[in-house]
């Protein structure tokens, strides 16, 4: 048993070996069989209708690269007529009246959506444990240890790692694609801010949120990103750049590639086993012709503090729309309008979401704006400037995606700040808006996956995917199957 890639499925569809309906039915059966709680909802009828339509399109000559390939969608993307919860009680019964542009783009290419994956509530979390719909079991969990899949795109990561879907969409505000990808042995790409439209993607922190692919391989990630990205007039921060084929340079040689290793990413707090795995992975790149250079991101220690002002501030503003008036949950009993808002939100939001809304409300409140929000945005510029300087000396920045491997469920829920430290290496790329990704880099002694983090200059996703692909051609970490995957050895 090995991984099933989008490339293989596309080849099977192209040769007529299997139809989209057959492939989709196979995955839907796997989802039913699984006990990972990776999905919040599965829409079989919609999926099979899309699969049938894809098969018909193929019969009439359509050869779109991923035509008829089924994927899972993070439950943060609105799909017209289907339940879209964002992992929250407040949206438990919300039926979206329109479709996110990313999903529309994918559907236009004939990609089939099977269902909506579990996630931390409003994408706030690093373990999927803040979901109203329950935690998700990491397919790499051992018999005696129930591990988290990471978050917030934990359901998407678990679905792909457990082979319930060959690929999934995710979103990344501070690491929510890359950290779960690292915990579940996947390739996860956060594109440059603005590459994928935010229209119809429920907002957390609008200046940071970005959608991206979660797949087994970099080659698959390039293909899926091709179907997701593109300028959208409906998103005021969508990048109006020429469409490009992210697969175009997958096979370019890495001869002469300059890799920057920021010393700040290898300091205190990094698990020593992780450090060794990352160093070994970097050596592999030397064997592929790359050279290593130490670089510095001197302000990176300020990324976490500034993020925990900027993201909650934007969240407190974005989530003010959930008031029980136009959609979503409304409290049953209330005395007046403010009481209705307050009861609705108190009942509808979970603890972590409430905490972040309150931090944001505090940071934006009268008299505190300059000390918090404005100061955080100034630090954000310093952090972005650090990257600009570092990229004068290197083509890509590498380091660990996370300080350690997947941890046990329940082990960090009592200490929010300890949980936040999970994203210490991933947050800087969000603040700067840079493309970044995590790829499988090896395993710890206890058999848990470790992710290698890659950051490239603005709009250089194709370069990032080229670097990742060449690594995957030379290694087989990404082909390892999780113990509780369909086909795994539990």
């Amino acid at each position, binding site marked *: 048993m090995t991984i099933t890639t989008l490339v293989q499925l596309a080849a099977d569809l192209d040769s007529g070996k299997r139809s989209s309906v057959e492939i989709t039915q196979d995955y839907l059966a796997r989802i039913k069989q699984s006990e990972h709680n990776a999905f919040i909802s599965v829409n079989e009828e919609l999926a099979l209708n899309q699969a049938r339509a894809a098969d018909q399109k193929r019969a009439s000559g359509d050869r779109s690269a991923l035509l008829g390939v089924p994927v899972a969608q993070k439950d943060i993307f609105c799909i017209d007529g289907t339940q879209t919860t964002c992992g929250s009680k407040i949206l438990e019964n919300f039926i979206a*009246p329109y479709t996110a542009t990313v999903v529309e783009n994918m559907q236009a290419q004939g990609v089939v959506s099977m269902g909506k994956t579990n996630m931390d509530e409003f994408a706030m979390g690093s373990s999927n444990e803040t979901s109203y719909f329950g935690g998700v079991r990491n397919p790499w969990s051992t018999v005696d240890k129930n591990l988290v899949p990471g978050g917030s795109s934990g359901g998407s990561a678990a679905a792909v790692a457990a082979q319930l879907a060959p690929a999934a969409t995710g979103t990344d505000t501070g690491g929510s694609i890359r950290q779960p990808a690292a915990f579940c042995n996947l390739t996860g790409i956060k594109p*440059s*801010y*603005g590459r994928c439209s935010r229209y119809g993607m429920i907002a957390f922190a609008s*200046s940071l949120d970005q959608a991206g692919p979660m797949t087994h391989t970099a080659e698959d990630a390039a293909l899926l990103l091709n179907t997701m990205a593109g300028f959208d007039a409906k998103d*005021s*921060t969508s*990048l*109006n750049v020429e469409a490009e084929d992210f697969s175009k340079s997958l096979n370019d040689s890495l001869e002469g590639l300059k890799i920057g290793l920021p010393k700040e990413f290898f300091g205190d707090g990094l698990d020593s086993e992780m450090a060794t795995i990352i160093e070994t992975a970097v050596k592999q790149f030397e064997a592929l012709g790359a050279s290593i250079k130490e670089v510095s991101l001197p302000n990176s*220690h*300020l990324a*976490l*503090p500034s993020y*925990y*002002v900027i993201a909650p501030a934007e969240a407190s503003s974005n989530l*003010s729309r959930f008031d029980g*008036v*136009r*959609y979503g*949950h*409304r409290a049953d009993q*209330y*005395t007046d*309008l403010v*009481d*209705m*808002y*307050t009861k609705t*939100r*108190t009942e509808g*939001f979970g603890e972590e979401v*409430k*905490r972040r809304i*309150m*931090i*944001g*409300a*505090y*940071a934006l*409140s009268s008299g505190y704006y300059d*000390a*918090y929000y404005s*100061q*955080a*945005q*100034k*630090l*954000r*510029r*310093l952090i*972005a400037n650090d990257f600009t300087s570092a990229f004068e000396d290197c083509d890509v920045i590498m380091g660990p995606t996370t300080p350690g491997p997947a941890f046990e469920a329940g082990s960090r829920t009592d*200490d*929010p*700040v300890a949980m*936040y430290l999970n994203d210490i290496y991933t947050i800087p790329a969000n*603040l*700067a*808006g*840079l493309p970044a990704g995590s790829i499988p880099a090896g395993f710890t002694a206890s058999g848990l996956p470790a992710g290698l983090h890659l950051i490239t200059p*603005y709009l250089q996703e194709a370069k990032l995917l080229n670097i990742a692909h060449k690594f995957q051609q030379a290694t087989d970490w990404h082909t390892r199957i999780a113990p509780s995957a369909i086909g795994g050895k539990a």
Partner: protein
Amino acid sequence: MALDNDTVHTIARLARIKIDPSEVARTRGALENILDLVAQMGAVDTTGIEPMTHPFDATMRLRADEITETNQREKFQAIAPSTQRGLYLVPKVID
């Protein structure tokens, strides 16, 4: 950074969230820990640094002032908790 219970209630009120009296101490502790993490920002001299609001420092795009959306009131109101004659119903605000 120390907060008092009144400040916790004020923040909660601004956020339109109610904190149960039995939860105030715990909420205060969690908020204090986050604000302690954030406090590191204060040590940096940012005089003359322009705040960065957007990764590409882009300004908002303008478009022609044309109607681009169609009226879908019935569809959008079908998912509302309470409507009547095309209006969203909320508790009475003015007597």
